[in-house]
């Protein structure tokens, strides 16, 4: 039941001067450490009835006419820290289009909008914790941090495990992108291994010939310490 304590060393530091927006937006005082309680050990549950037919297909879900760009499958498994699959996890993603432009009034980058690309999608993991999205590989883009800082191609991932205390937003990067090593947002994570785990390898076993490439991104949510009670099954 109780969630394992969050290993803060595996996460970005809140105050990271290289990422300027974090300077006025990061707490300066220590967090209050607590064991989790019912409030954190429960959470909203989203059923498959939430999903529309094309919710995990960002190529088609905006207008029905295919978006422009390099077609990719993003897939993987959601597990907890014990390697147990997390079924029923809601995953929401959002991203720029193939030119590196978001469909957002505050994004004024000169790359054009794609009339057929909305930029968001969602799905729910199956019994094995597996998920899949069909999308367009997003473009890299410059952003106002340093004078010539660029974001590597990335997809934002938002995850709901069974507990509110497992709530996670992260970003997935693509294997081989030279901008990853130069990105101030990636660099907010001190542990190089933790960075590596955000980089999805090319997965030709799931690529579709004459259609799309595939990348595999496995995600680990916090584990729950298991206590066996006589009157309820494990995990509830």
């Amino acid at each position, binding site marked *: 039941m109780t*969630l394992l*304590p*969050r*290993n803060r060393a595996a*996460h*970005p*530091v*809140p105050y990271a001067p290289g*990422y*300027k927006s*974090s300077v*006025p*937006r*990061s*707490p*300066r*005082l220590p*967090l*209050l450490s*607590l064991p989790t*309680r*019912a*409030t*954190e050990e*429960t*959470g*909203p*549950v*989203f059923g498959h009835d*939430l999903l*529309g037919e094309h*919710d995990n297909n960002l190529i088609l879900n*905006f207008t029905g006419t295919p978006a422009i760009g390099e077609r990719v499958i993003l897939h993987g498994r959601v*597990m*907890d*820290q014990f390697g147990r699959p997390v079924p029923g996890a809601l995953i*929401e993603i*959002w991203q720029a289009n193939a030119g590196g432009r*978001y469909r*957002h009034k*505050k994004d004024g980058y000169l790359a054009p909008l794609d009339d057929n690309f*909305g*930029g*968001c*999608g969602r799905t729910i993991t199956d019994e094995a914790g597996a998920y899949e999205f069909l999308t367009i590989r997003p473009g890299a883009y410059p952003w106002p941090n340093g004078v010539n800082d660029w974001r590597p191609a990335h997809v*934002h991932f*938002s995850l709901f495990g069974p507990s*509110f*205390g497992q*709530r996670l*937003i992260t*970003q997935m990067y693509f294997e081989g992108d030279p901008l990853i090593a130069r990105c101030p*947002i990636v660099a*907010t*994570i001190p542990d190089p*291994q933790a960075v590596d*785990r955000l980089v999805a390898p090319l997965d030709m076993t799931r690529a579709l010939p004459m259609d799309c490439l595939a990348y595999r991104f496995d*995600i680990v*949510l916090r*584990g729950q310490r298991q206590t066996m009670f006589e009157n309820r099954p494990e995990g509830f």
Partner: protein
Amino acid sequence: MVQHLTDLTETASQTAGPYVHIGCTPNFAGIEGIYKEDLGRQPYPEDAPGERITITGQVLDGLGVPLRDVMLESWQAGADGTFGPGAQGFARLAADQETGIWTLNTIKPGRVGNQSPHIALWIVARGINIGLQTRLYFEGDDHSDDPVLNRIEHRDRVRTLMARPEGQATWRFDIRLQGDGETVFLDI
């Protein structure tokens, strides 16, 4: 070498960035036609038992400037102090893009065991590298037994977790990310 019981490390967080609303509240962001409605528009149906309340607030940065690009999520028990099925008790809040004011229309939660009525809040935005967890309590309730509030060493910081009454069934709760009156954030 002894194997660790927990083999895997939690995936690292990354900032939700300036465009979190595209993914989490696309209709609010002007991307219509993909989902019928945004998730978590209301934590409880209108006919759910309990006292209906409205909470408003702002999230302020270290210079006292309200965040207009922030997204919050709330999670709470119902009036009976239990967590309901499905997504009951869950809300997603986008701040007003001009004023940074967010509004939560909900039910006053009941006590959860020995804990005072409270609402869990999770805050993400550009510049926040890992989502911030905190709790909202209600000024005027009996908080003497609450185990979370009792853990706060600097007693004058307890007030940073108190929503203040602002009239009939209306409450105000501001969150300060740093500086004077920095909100108590939880490592949970």
